């Protein structure tokens, strides 16, 4: 009865979208923070290769953060 009244598909899609969006943004922002912090640490330790790699991870995290948020907003506006 309840399943008939509730738009189960919409509800499940909403739940899935919430989980994916929040977890994805958390991961990429955390990676951005990890990368930039480790870049400084590695740089100070003289490990230039590792520092560049960490900076790459940080940069990728930033780019993905912007991309995920922009995608979400565009999807909402597009309906």
């Amino acid at each position, binding site marked *: 009865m*309840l399943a*008939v*009244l*509730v*738009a189960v598909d*919409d*509800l499940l*899609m*909403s*739940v899935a*979208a*919430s*989980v994916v*969006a*929040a*977890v994805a*943004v*958390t*991961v990429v*922002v*955390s*990676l*951005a*923070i*990890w990368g*930039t*912090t*480790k870049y*400084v*640490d590695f740089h100070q330790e003289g490990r230039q290769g590792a520092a560049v790699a960490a900076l790459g991870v940080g940069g990728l995290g930033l780019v993905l*953060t912007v991309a995920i*948020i922009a995608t*979400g*907003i565009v*999807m*909402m*506006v597009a*309906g």
Partner: protein
Amino acid sequence: MDVHLILVIVIVAALAFDYTNGFHDTANVVATSISTGAASPKAAVAFAAVLNFVGAFISIEVATTIAKDVIDPQAIAGGDSLNVVYSGLMGAIAWNLITWYFGLPSSSSHALIGGIVGAAVAAVGTGAVETAGLIGKVLVPAIVAPILAFLVAGAAIAICYQIIGKLRPGPVTRGYRYGQIVSGGLLALAHGTNDAQKTMGVITLALIADGALSPGSDPPIWVIVSAASAIALGTYSGGWRIIKTTGTKIIKMDAAQGFSAQGAGAAVIMASSHFGFPLSTTHVINGGVMGAGVAKRLSAVRWGVAGNIVGAWVLTLPAAAAIGAFTYGVTVVTGGGAVGPVAISAISLVLIAGAFVRRARMGAPAADGTGAPITEDAASLIVEGGEVMTVDGKPVTAAGIAGSPDEPGRDG
């Protein structure tokens, strides 16, 4: 003439409701950003106001749900249909005022839906209620969303700690503070998207009932702009009040927790808005705050306050419905024209003014100590409330962070 006068009263009352919604919810939207030092109070409030305005333009799915899927507009169409919408609004406003006065946490959104359903049932019986819409799009999401925000925020903070656990705390805190500018902005955007649309939906319902719009119409642009403006103004005004009174007690969270709570709340509200679910944004944000708090330490959550929120949630729909039905009865007794709404509005304004004066004389409601309306501010109570909020070790005072450019006398 009577009909148009009632329509004007309904629109004014709806926009006033929207304004108070923004006013009440400012604390929820900006609390974590301010408490973790991610933004100054002034910047956080101004940012939230602008993004609430922008958010109102993102989607109209929630407005459509309110206008079409809670009650059947054609079932209430007729002579006193506007009185039904008016009575529903008054039910919501009255319940908000009552809960504010007594310091009970409640949801403006649920009060609005309860009030309108109650008035419609009083007018034409249960046949006016869209049972599938009410249960499927309002009641079930209302239960699922806060729980989802709780779980998502808990998962998010666990991920944060997993990734950055062994790093130096200084850069990590700075990083998540920057992250909070984004997550706080998204939360404000989400809030504007979901809450402003409820007012758009009510005004659209009134316009359909009045015959100014055909059934099934989307909100006109002037409705969207006015609802967006009202919630943004309310957010800004509410924020200033909070800045003046919040020298005080707010959530004690670290920046990663604040980021996780805001991100989870924003994701749940935006996804729900996309599918047309009119949520209580307060409950969702509270769920996120609790999830981020409990993931760190179970005792960080003030479970008594959380219990009060659940209690108020159960009470809000029937109470607002009863007031909406009673108000409709009064409009019938007074002849069904504009006399009832005009008289009720005048009496309400006097009561509201009296309540504000009395509350001001009594001092701040005891429950949170901020003096701000409690109804939508419960987020500030859930996690480790009762500690003086500090930013970089400096207490946040009546007008900002002590010793910062925001402090009085320092900004020229």
